[in-house]
């Protein structure tokens, strides 16, 4: 039984200076965990994510990070991430080190980490300036005589935080919709926190084993946190809050407005439950998804 509170999960598994990956590509981005990390005042984190998104923009604005490892630095479909840009261009609130890859390069790093390999080869980076600014992207000669091939080193985060639809109390986790690199990063990490919309019986998991992305075997803590991925989305539970993604563009342009937002919505609430209540019923009504059920399959 690994069920615990977000407060305890973060206090136990996220420490100052840790390498932390809160993945989830557009979907299932665990803002609830990020906000708890901010509230607990973690510092000097190395934050890994393909797309830092609003979640790391907020953590950087709150002064949690010393370095980003990433592949796409933007507010998708909207514009730049202003807080991260302030940190990179002006050192506000603190300088931020960048280590950048392409998406495939980040995925390959997680795979190398998960498979416990010294590196992972991929056909990318040829002709690009990226290897010139990131010495960890290298080329090796294929031992089979196919010429040079790009390689990236493993990424093994101290902790990965995975948001998903449902899990049992032992951390057997089912996720559908966009899968991102959630499985790879979970298997690569030293510790795994799983955060879910619903806790279900083991029977529910066993009724559909192909949908289990992450086994309880590699999970350290399970947190039940409905709406924990807002303003990102969870397929079948709530839609992406595109209005908030647009609004963050306005808020984050201004340093004081960003601090005020963090004050009200992160420091000013005790936990995710209070955030959900403060957001109000209208928000959750607005984000209610349509119904689109899959047909059951016979596992017999």
């Amino acid at each position, binding site marked *: 039984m690994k069920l615990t509170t977000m407060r305890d999960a973060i206090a136990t598994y996220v420490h100052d200076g840790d390498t932390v990956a809160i993945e989830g*590509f*557009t*979907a299932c981005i665990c803002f609830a965990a990020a906000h708890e990390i901010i509230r607990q005042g973690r510092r000097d984190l190395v934050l890994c994510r*393909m*797309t830092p998104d609003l979640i790391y923009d907020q953590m950087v604005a709150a002064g949690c990070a010393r370095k980003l490892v*990433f*592949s*796409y*630095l*933007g507010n*998708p*479909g909207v514009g*730049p991430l202003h807080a*991260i*840009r302030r940190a*990179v*261009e002006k050192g506000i609130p603190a300088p931020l080190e960048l280590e*950048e*890859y*392409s*998406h*495939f*390069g980040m*995925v390959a790093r*997680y*795979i190398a980490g998960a498979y416990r390999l010294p590196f992972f080869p*991929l*056909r*990318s*980076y*040829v*002709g*690009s*300036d*990226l290897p010139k*600014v990131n010495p960890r992207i290298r080329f090796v000669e294929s031992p089979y005589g196919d*010429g040079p091939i790009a390689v990236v080193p493993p990424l093994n985060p101290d902790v990965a935080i995975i948001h998903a639809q449902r899990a049992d109390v032992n951390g057997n986790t089912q996720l*559908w*919709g*966009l*899968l*991102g*690199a*959630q*499985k*790879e990063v979970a298997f690569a990490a030293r510790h795994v926190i799983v955060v879910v919309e619903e806790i279900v019986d083991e029977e529910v998991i066993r009724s559909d084993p192909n949908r289990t992305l992450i086994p309880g075997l590699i999970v350290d803590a399970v947190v039940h946190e409905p709406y924990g991925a807002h303003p990102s*989305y969870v*397929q079948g539970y709530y*839609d*992406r809050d*595109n209005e908030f*993604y647009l609004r963050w563009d306005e808020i984050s342009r201004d340093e004081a407005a960003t601090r005020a937002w963090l004050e009200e919505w992160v420091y000013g609430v005790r936990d995710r439950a209070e955030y959900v209540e403060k957001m109000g019923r209208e928000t959750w009504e607005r984000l209610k*998804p*349509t119904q*689109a059920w899959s047909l059951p399959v016979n596992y017999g």
Partner: protein
Amino acid sequence: MADYTPSEMMIVAAARALAGVRTVFVGVGLPNIACNLAQRTVAPDLELVYESGVYGARPARLPLSIGDPALITGALSVCSMADLFGLYLQGGRIDVAFLGGAQIDRYGNLNTTVIGDYAHPKVRLPGSGGACEIAIHARQVFIIMRLSRRSFVERLDFLTSPGHLGGSGERERLGMPGRGPQVVVTDKCVFRFDPGTGEMVLVSLHPGVRLEDVRAEMGWDPRVSPDLTETEPPTPEELRLLREELDPLGVYRS
């Protein structure tokens, strides 16, 4: 005065370039709407592929981002990003990819990383995303960008995604599977690439645009095709689809 905007012309021209294409790797913004328009007009068998892990999307509404939940509902397949980049892209299954950038040079090389010096950038841009490997692997790359002197530059500040690099033949020498950039669609004109040199060549001007309007917005003097033509203006049906079905709020059309 034309009854359509330059952006509408650009989207329509990009959609037409997809005639007969089977698989297209879709980017955010304008490429997104161009691919959705192509699916409803010149390329009914077009399968939309998104780097978020979606193959064969049939979005009921225009997605705001490449990870929009509307892309998942009713898709043929949703897979991990490891599978999308490893099996679909690197596996050679993508016919066309749309890319764009903050800067492009005459060989179709793209910068989406920084303006200014990398260590002390004037502007920090998003970076590669999947663009670097997409530019290497897709059989053809179509570029969609607004024409401006700031974007069409003699020299990139940073080369994120390779086009024809220093000229024709260099991609093959480096073993890149894809053929690289084939067309650049802008709000004023369309370019293709000279197979001999790998250099961008102006092939058509949108109605009402003069050659000097194009030259004024470019950081180098572009080569002009001897067969320079005028782009066919959008048809009423293309405009109806754009305005009524694909982008009723006018997010991408202004």
